[in-house]
C-alpha cells in the first residue's frame, strides 16, 4: 500500500506543481492571485473532451488547441478585467473570484453537472518493479507533466523572455527602467499562468473527469502549494507540489480518504504558523 500510495502521490504531485507554477508565476510578476485558476484548468479539460470526442480530432491536436484557446482567453481576461486594477489588489481578488463563480455556472449550463472525460491516451497497465500494476494513463500523465515543467524551467532559466520574467519579479521598477514593457509582460504572464492551468487540465482530465466545480479543490491545492513553496518561488512549487501530493495520498491511504484535502489545509496552517514566507520565499512577502 505504501508503494502505490507514494506512486499516486508523485503523479498527482507533479500535476499540483504544474498547476501551482501558473499561480506562482502570476503572483511573482503581477502580485495578483487568480482565483479563477481552477476554472481555467476545467475549461481546458472540457475543450479537450469536446475536440477529441465530439469533433473526433487527433488527441494531441485537441490538447494543444485546448491549451492555446485557454491561453488566448487568459490574455483577454487580463486585458479586460485585471489590467484596470493594477495597484489595487482588492479588486483583482474580487474580480477573479466573481469570474470563477460565473465560469462554474456557465459550465453547469453548457455541459451539465455530469462528469466528462476525454479519451485516454494509452491503455493497459505496467508492472512497476514487480511491486504493483500501475495504469499506463497515469504514467503518461506523469511523463507529460514532467516534460511541461522542464520546458517551463528551461524557458525561464535559458531564454531572453525568461530573463525578462525573472528581472520583473525581482524588481519591477528597475526592469521598467531597462526597457521592459511590463504591461505587455503582465498580459503574457497571466495568459501563460492560465495556459499552465490548462496544461494540467488536459493532462489530468483523462484520469480525473471534469465537472463544473471540480476546479475548486485543484485551485485550492495550487494555492496551498504556492504558500508552502513561498509566494513567487518556482522551485518552491516543485517541492511543495510533490510534498502535498505525497502527504495527501499517504494520509488518504493510512488515515482517512474523506479527509484527503484536509491534510493540505493542515499543511497550510502549519506553514502560516511556523514559517509564513514558505520554504523558498523571501523574508518580506
Amino acid at each position, binding site marked *: 500500500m505504501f508503494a502505490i500510495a507514494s506512486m499516486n502521490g508523485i503523479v498527482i504531485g507533479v500535476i499540483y506543481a504544474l498547476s501551482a507554477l501558473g499561480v506562482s508565476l502570476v503572483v511573482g510578476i503581477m502580485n495578483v492571485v487568480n482565483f479563477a485558476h481552477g476554472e481555467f484548468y476545467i475549461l481546458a479539460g472540457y475543450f479537450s473532451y469536446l475536440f477529441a470526442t465530439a469533433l473526433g480530432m487527433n488527441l494531441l491536436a485537441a490538447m494543444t488547441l485546448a491549451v492555446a484557446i485557454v491561453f488566448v482567453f487568459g490574455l483577454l481576461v487580463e486585458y479586460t478585467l485585471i489590467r484596470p486594477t493594477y495597484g489595487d489588489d482588492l479588486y483583482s481578488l474580487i474580480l477573479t473570484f466573481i469570474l470563477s463563480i460565473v465560469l462554474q455556472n456557465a459550465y453547469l449550463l453548457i455541459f451539465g453537472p455530469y462528469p466528462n472525460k476525454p479519451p485516454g491516451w494509452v491503455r493497459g497497465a505496467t508492472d512497476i518493479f514487480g511491486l504493483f500494476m500501475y495504469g499506463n494513463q497515469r504514467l503518461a500523465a506523469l511523463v507529460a507533466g514532467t516534460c511541461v515543467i522542464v520546458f517551463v524551467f528551461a524557458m525561464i532559466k535559458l531564454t531572453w523572455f525568461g530573463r525578462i520574467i525573472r528581472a520583473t519579479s525581482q524588481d519591477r521598477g528597475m526592469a521598467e527602467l531597462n526597457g521592459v514593457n511590463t504591461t505587455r509582460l503582465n498580459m503574457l504572464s497571466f495568459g501563460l499562468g492560465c495556459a499552465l492551468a490548462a496544461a494540467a487540465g488536459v493532462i489530468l482530465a483523462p484520469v480525473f473527469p471534469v465537472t463544473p466545480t471540480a476546479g475548486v479543490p485543484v485551485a485550492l491545492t495550487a494555492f496551498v502549494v504556492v504558500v508552502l513553496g513561498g509566494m513567487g518561488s518556482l522551485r518552491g512549487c516543485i517541492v511543495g507540489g510533490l510534498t502535498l501530493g505525497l502527504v495527501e495520498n499517504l494520509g488518504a491511504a493510512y488515515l482517512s480518504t474523506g479527509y484527503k484535502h*484536509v491534510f493540505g489545509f493542515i499543511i497550510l496552517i502549519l506553514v502560516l504558523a511556523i514559517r*509564513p514566507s514558505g520554504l523558498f520565499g523571501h523574508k518580506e512577502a
Partner: protein
Amino acid sequence: MSQGASILKSNRKNFLYGAGLAAFAVLPWMLGVYNQHVLIVCLFYTMMAASWNLIAGYTGQISFGHAAFAGIGAYVSGILAVKAGLNPWVGVAAGTVAAAFFGLLVGLLCLRMGGIYLSLTTLGFSEILHIIINNEYEITRGTMGLQVPGLTTSYSKISYFYIFLVGAVITLTIVYKLVHSNVGLNFRAVQNDERAASALGVDVVRTRLLAFTVSSALAGMAGALFGHYMMLITPHIPSLDQQFLVLSMTVIGGLGSFVGPVIGAFCLEILSEYIRAWGEYHVLVFGLVALVVARFAPKGLVGIYKAWRGKKRPETA
C-alpha cells in the same frame, strides 16, 4: 456650514432614518406570507453583507470565509439545540461566540501576512468546513440537512421578521459605531496606507484582527438566526455560492459605504425571487452584473448615485 445647521441637518437625517425604519417595521402586516419570507431573507442578507463590508470595505481585507462563519454559527447553534436540547437562543449566542473564536484563530494565523493570505486561508477554511460537514454525517446529517427547532414556540413569519429586523439593526449599529470611532479611523488609515498608519502608532495587525473577529461574529449570529428560521441547516449556508451572493450584494450596492450593502442585499434578493421563475440562471446573471459593476463602477450603486448628484450640484459636492 455652521455648527448649528449641521446639528439640525443630522437631527433631520436621524429623524428620516427613524421614520423609514418605523415604516419598514409595519410593512409585513400588509404583505402575504411569501413576501414576508422575502423580507426576512433580505434582512438576513443585510446582516451578512453589512458585516462582510466591515472587513472588506473598511479595512480592505477580502475574506472568502464569511458564509463559512455563518455556517459555523448555524451548525453550532443547531447541533446544541438538537443534541444537547439547549434553548435555541442560548444556541444563537454560542454560535456567535464560536464564529468569533474561529475568526480570531484564522485572523491570528494569517493577518500579519496581509492581503492575499487572508483570502487564500479563508477560501481553504470554507472548503474544509464543507468536507467536515459532509463527512461527519452522524452529527451534521450532511447534505440531507439538520432539522432544528425554531426560535419561537408558535411559528409565525411576523415574529421572525421582527427578530431579523432587530438582528439587522444590531449589526448595522455595531458596524456604524465601530467605523465612526477611533478604531474606525484606524481601519481607514490601515486601508489607505499601511506603512504610514503603522509609523503613526496604529497597530495594523490588531486593527485588522479586531475588524475580522467582529465581522465573523456577526456572520455567525446571522447564520444561527437563519438556521433556526429555516428549521433546516444544510451545507448550502456555508457554501461558496452563498459567499458569492454576499460579495456581489456588497459590491453592487457599494463597497465601503454604510448603506451600500443594505441596498445591495435588498435589490439582489428581491431580483433573485423574480429571476427564479426562469430557472437556475440567477447566480450566472448576478455574476455577470457584479463583474461589470466591479470593473466599471467599483463604488457600486452608491458611488453611481454620488457621482450623479455631484454632477448635478457641483457647488455642494
